[in-house]
């Protein structure tokens, strides 16, 4: 196969490219330039976006003996990932830019361009497994079409199936995750070292790549401007001030800057971000507990049950609500639109999903987060949270 290896300059994507080469594929390395003004050197824990990182990717490609190019996707990145990040925060929601990057950049802009240029697949250094399952033979004995399932990585600490779920089955058909079988990062580093890849000891990256120093609030203030407003408690009393409600996220406890402690002396959390009135509402932890979640823009690799979406049946599954959160048992049903608290369904035919917690309620579920539904290690689907409540 002709494979495009996306190479960030980090150790994971370098080893993924190496494995694709060793599997016998015809591999070309591509580094995506995602920022319009790239720094010369890598700083902090951002790991992909400086010119130094592009140079690291180039050296890895040299060592592997594969062609290497840089593709400028900065305009697209700004228009999708960064714009979505800003508008979601501005709307009082909590976006995950890595999910949006996989959705719009890696498995759309990059994948579509690669396909148009004649590539069969895009390989990345993500930790996730693709399991191909042959469909049962048809009545006439002919083989059915094989299906590709997305599964968690055996490396539970690094598992990235959560941020990949958004791509959906059509995109997964053209994706390749050569690190899928690796149980630890140490093994990946050892593989890099064994091949003489100088990035073997490069530190991990975990910050949002376009936010300097991990200062999300500072980034939002630079881009959205200061919008002073009030912090109120659930009774409506003003208990503090803020520079912009957009910078707060439901479930947040730190950085509220409230002078006086609550009357009952208990910790206060952000329980609501009301962008229409530019108000941040704080309250006790129990207000954060939810057991019902609604989601929009559902993407299914495999629907939770055999019946069509909207027929109302609940099915057992597990839910993961943030990138490194633990899965919790839920019941899920696929809906034909976006479900609301009153049981109605809205939306112009864009499917959604509804979840009800089976055990302990969840805390700090914010609109905008990705809800990913698993069954065991398999990703069934995902949706973007629109609402969460105590049912």
């Amino acid at each position, binding site marked *: 196969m002709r494979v495009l290896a996306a190479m960030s300059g980090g150790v994971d994507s370098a080893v993924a490219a190496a494995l694709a080469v060793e599997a016998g594929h015809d591999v070309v390395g591509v580094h995506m330039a995602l920022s319009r003004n790239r720094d010369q050197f890598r700083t902090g824990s951002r790991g992909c976006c400086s010119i130094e990182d592009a140079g690291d990717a*180039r050296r890895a490609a040299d060592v592997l003996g594969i062609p290497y190019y840089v593709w*400028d996707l900065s305009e697209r990145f700004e*228009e*999708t990932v960064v714009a979505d990040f800003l508008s979601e925060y501005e709307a009082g929601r909590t976006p995950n830019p890595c999910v949006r990057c996989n959705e719009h950049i890696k498995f759309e802009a990059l994948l579509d361009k690669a396909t148009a240029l004649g590539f069969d697949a895009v390989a990345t250094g993500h930790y996730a497994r693709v399991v191909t399952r042959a469909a049962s033979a048809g009545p006439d004995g002919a083989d059915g079409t094989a299906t590709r399932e997305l599964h968690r990585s055996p490396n539970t600490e690094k598992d990235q199936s959560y941020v990949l779920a958004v791509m959906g089955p059509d995109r997964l058909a053209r994706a390749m995750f050569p690190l899928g079988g690796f149980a630890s990062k140490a093994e990946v580093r050892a593989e890099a070292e064994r091949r003489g890849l100088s990035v073997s000891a490069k530190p991990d990256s975990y910050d949002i790549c376009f936010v300097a120093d991990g200062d999300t609030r500072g980034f939002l203030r630079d881009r959205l401007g200061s919008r002073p407003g009030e912090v109120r408690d659930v009774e409506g009393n003003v208990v503090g001030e803020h520079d912009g409600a957009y910078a707060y996220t439901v479930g947040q406890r730190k950085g509220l800057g409230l002078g006086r402690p609550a009357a009952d002396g208990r910790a206060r959390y952000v329980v609501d971000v009301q962008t229409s009135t530019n108000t941040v509402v704080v309250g006790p932890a129990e207000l954060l507990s939810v057991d019902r979640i609604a989601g929009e823009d559902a993407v299914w690799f495999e629907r939770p049950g055999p019946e069509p979406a909207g027929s109302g049946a609940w099915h057992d599954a597990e839910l993961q609500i943030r990138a490194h959160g633990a899965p919790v048992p839920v019941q899920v049903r696929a809906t034909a639109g976006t479900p609301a608290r009153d049981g109605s369904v809205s939306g112009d035919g864009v499917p959604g999903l509804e979840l009800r917690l089976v055990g302990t309620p969840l805390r700090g579920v914010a609109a905008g987060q990705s809800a990913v539904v698993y069954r065991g290690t398999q990703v069934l689907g995902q949706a973007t949270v629109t609402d969460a409540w105590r049912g």
Partner: protein
Amino acid sequence: MSARTSGVREFVDWVIVTTPSPAPDAGAEVPEGAYLDHAATTPMSPAALAAFVAEAGRPGNASSLHSAGRSARRTVEESRESVAAALGARPSEVIFTAGGTEADNLAIKGIFWGRRRTDARRTRVLVSAVEHHAVLDPAFWLAGHAGAEITLLPVDGDGRLDLAALRAELAAHADEVALVSVMWANNEVGTVQPVRDVVRLAHQHGIPVHTDAVQAVGQVEVDFAASGVDAMTVTGHKVGGPVGVGALLARRDLPIEAVLHGGGQERGVRSGTLDMPAIRAFAVALAEAVASHPQRAAQLAALRDALVAGVRRVAPEAVLRGPDPSRFVDGVPARLPANAHFTFPGAEGDSLLYLLDSAGVQASTGSACQAGVPQPSHVLLAMGVPEADARGALRFSLGTTSQAADVDRLVAALPQVVDRARAAGLVSGRALTGGVG
């Protein structure tokens, strides 16, 4: 791919036999196929390479006073005489540098500082809008650090300087202009500039003229004295010499300040130990290129014309940018004979470059890139090409090793390459207008 892989393996085996540690270039690709990027750099000529290897084994710093030093100095001075003779200059006008970029920096900064030393009002630098970054960036650096005012002189749709604009600028600010810099020929679209007219206009006001002749030497006749310019940049690796050596030719009466300070070599204007082997090889290559210029230019032009005709035949929507190759101005070709440059509507340069590369054809988007990302060409934009069209640019440049088979390979690969690149361009275009999902 398989042919290259096996070639690499043989090379690696050989390296392992001769050196115990892995060779640094163990995975290096051996270029094969059609190399159509001679304007970026062209291979060293066999004579220049032989001269380089012979001199590189000899001891001697040309500034040393003992016999080895005198011997090195003699080689440098013979080379200087040879370079001067090839370019219509006097030996004392040749300042050796480590290439074209350094010579351009020395010209722009050195002349600016030299002129301002004698007249503090002279802060204006006039440069054409299509100069190489080695001229533009020092000029804008002076604007940011030394109070210079930069005027970008406009060009016409072929990339040729608008002389009326220069005349008007000189008439308005003659007392404030430090220097004028207009390249002899453009590196992207090959436009030969009216340097003699520039000199005539500037000298009416006593203003010195610098020209970057890096791309012109060996392709059109370049005579320093006859042109009347006060300073001229030339480089080794575009004429079959080594990378990392070049010269600024500068009239002896031109006020010029040093950029590199140190041992005081090269009239005190350019310090640093003279790179004798590179200078020697540069001189050899330059002499060859100039001596063989008439035949070489005719061969290059014939091959270039075949390339242009072939591209037009298989990709009729492609637009040739720059002057008509058959045009002459005052007996001089309007376009460098080795240059062809096209924009391909709906395609992006990086897609075209990748697809051609994988088909064994090596070309350039022609414009500057930042760590691998091609930027929309300032040259095309100055010529009035819309930015969307400028993104689909490819430059093909020929050299002495180019053959008809190289052009055939390009023409054979091009139809599928353009189709695919346009398909990819459609995907990108749709993505760009699709907005936030």
